[in-house]
């Protein structure tokens, strides 16, 4: 059976659950303590991204932080939900940035963000350009490619092998940055579900009080994370 474009493949779900029994346990525990556990990610209704965009974000983040191996992947951490919400807000519309023209989008990268486009517009315009390149180069849009080819395509995007137009050249950079943000930000923003990413690396989140441990040199801090809303994991 063919996987639905954009949804993480059944294969990667199976791998994730098989390889990370401990992580699944954490999720269960967090769910038990959270009265309003979110719906499964495949039932999530994006507030901002269109279906093809959502399919891309699901597929791309699943490769940027894959489910296999130790630690949660972007899908288990619900990173796509985070990205959808961020793009729907002030970040997506560059609400804080100076966006007056004239723009010199082709200026040297050291000169910073010079595109006239907002981050949301970069996703909206970058995804079809990249999908068209994937179709032409690999025969299918990104979300329909197998994992190994997806990795190859993302590498091409990162190295700008398709010579994307200058207005869109930060596409990969913000996609990767937003993916890591969604992995590690407080769970109230929709990602880092169950604080799995914090637990995986050993960051205690919003505990905020370590006075008694400052001089315990080279001794691992023993407590797990808490979130801003008071979840524990």
């Amino acid at each position: 059976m063919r996987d639905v474009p954009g949804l993480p493949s059944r294969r990667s779900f199976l791998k994730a659950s098989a390889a990370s029994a401990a992580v699944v346990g954490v999720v269960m525990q967090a769910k038990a303590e959270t009265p309003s556990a979110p719906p499964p990610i495949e039932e999530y209704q994006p507030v901002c991204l269109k279906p093809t965009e959502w399919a891309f974000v699901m597929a791309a983040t699943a490769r940027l932080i894959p489910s296999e191996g130790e630690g949660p992947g972007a899908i288990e951490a619900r990173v796509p939900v985070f990205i959808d919400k961020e793009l729907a807000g002030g970040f997506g519309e560059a609400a804080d940035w100076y966006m007056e023209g004239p723009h010199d989008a082709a200026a040297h990268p050291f000169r910073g963000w010079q595109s006239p486009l907002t981050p949301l517009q970069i996703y909206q315009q970058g995804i079809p350009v990249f999908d068209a390149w994937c179709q032409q180069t690999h025969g299918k849009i990104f979300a329909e490619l197998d994992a190994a080819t997806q990795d190859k395509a993302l590498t091409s995007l990162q190295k700008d092998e398709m010579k994307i137009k200058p207005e869109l050249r930060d596409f990969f950079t913000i996609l990767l940055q937003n993916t890591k943000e969604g992995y590690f930000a407080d769970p109230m923003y929709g990602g880092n579900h169950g604080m799995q990413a914090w637990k995986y690396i050993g960051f205690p989140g919003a505990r905020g009080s370590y006075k008694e441990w400052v001089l315990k040199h080279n001794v691992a801090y023993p407590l797990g994370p808490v979130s801003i809303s008071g979840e524990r994991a």
Partner: protein
Amino acid sequence: MARTAKKKDVVIVGLGWTGSILGMELANEGLEIVALERGHDQNTVPDFQYPNMIDELKYGVRLGMMQKPRNSTLTIRRNVDEAALPYRSLGSFLPGIGVGGAGTHWNGLNWRPQLSEYRLRSHVEERWGAGIIPEDMNLQDYPVSYEELEPFFDRFEHVAGISGKAGNLNGKKIEGGNPFEAPRSREYPMPPMPVTWDGAKFAEAAKAAGCHPFPSPGGIASQAYVNEYGMQMGPCNHCGFCERYGCYNYSKSSPQTAILDALKRKPNFEYRTHAEVLKIEMAPDGKTATGVTYFDEKAGEEVFQPADLVILAAYQLHNVHLMLLSGIGQPFDPATNEGVTGRSYAYQMNGGYTMFFKDEVFNPFIGTGANGMSIDDFGMDNIDFGREGFIGGAYWRAGQSNGQPIRSMALPAGTPTWGAGWKKGIGEWYGHSMSIGSHGSHMSYRGNYLDLDPTYKDRHGRPLMRMTFNWQPNDIRMTQFMKSKMEPIAKSMNPTSMQEGFKKDGAMYDVRPYQTTHNVGGTVMGDNPKTSAINRYLQAWDKHNIFVMGAGAFPQNTQYNPTGMVGGLAYWAAHAIRTQYLSNPRPLV
């Protein structure tokens, strides 16, 4: 038409550290004062409360406490041949917004410059001759000596509540402190903070190499403290959220913890927020200011605020911008090296090593902004500039400030930036690395300056300020010298692997990664009105009722974080206004 507000004795532009200090000192003279702050009001409670404040995404990444480029920014180019482009989103430096300013979101590192730094040109000429000064370097003395400033450094440190260990008390060297510091008249207000594993390891290695480690001095309370204004601090709990955040624990020095609540109780002091000053207005004779025009955001109108005395206490960049817009001082021209406003913009030359230790645990989330151990063995006073081929110096420090994982994720070189390799890398290496930083001086050059941009405008229709800035060979030689000295010490700690981050020959300024918010110069203080915008009392040379606070006064940047010097100079200027100016307003020099 602008509305005219009721006249005040003093108008203060900006309510950060220096605005608060001048507000308090001049309010104590009985003057009627209004401070105008372009940003919002903010207080420890409710604005910095736990747990909402310690939100890395909102404040660390989306920069919730910083100025919004949409409202206020500048353009940047690396040299005069390039077209300047707007600094559209914040990267390299992060000016603050709101009451407290950058003093609210800083790390707390607090220093006094080394003795040679106040008279750097004279120091160089006396020891090596003017011949070693690069042709395009505008090297100048500060027009005030350390001996004159010492009581004011002391005052600021005791108001701000600094923790540290003296290494030189009235000329007597004290074991455990910094043996290379300038003599201080008394101990720090509080003992030093305890140090995490990374700082302790560095201190041991530095000592073994013959250096002299000491606990880093900082505005982080190591115990309960009450200052001269009755303001109280509580001991820090090492939460690891200093820089980019307000402190929820009343532990970090800031205008909020040290001054503002006491100042707000004074009936002759008033402050207005969402009040952005657009211009300083001049009397017809051009010799004095009559007040300022500001935009009242709530009323949506311009207001003229008359005042007898104008204190510019905005961030360094904004002070320079306002002076350029208001015609205070002749704008600097790099073609002739003449003019004073915008002259000698400088920055900071930093570098460092990151070391990975597979089998050691650093708990990086346990930290403070001023954590750790430092050395000054490679400071200005200890370097033979003639032999080494540069003018400058640095202090080094190891002390973790935070373990916030979006931004603070050091990985060994060669780790993939995404995918399975990245995920494996973060699991293996988070909490298993430390770094040593070299915090270096930055000289002033003819080619690094500030003026008005010809193309881009702000929301009020005013030209943006334009920064022309690039790294210069002298400072790169300095930082490469630091690398050569740091490498063996880092190696001696036997890390699993290590990697360096020092600028190399030909490095071009990249505005994207955060570097430091130590923007200095542009309103340089000096003895000569042809090469400085303000005199030794921070008074504008050509408009005697305008005083200009902040790091804009630095003729070139020191090797330290600037706040200690900024605070000391503010008390020094306040003293001159109180004792010399108020009774007889005139040019003090």
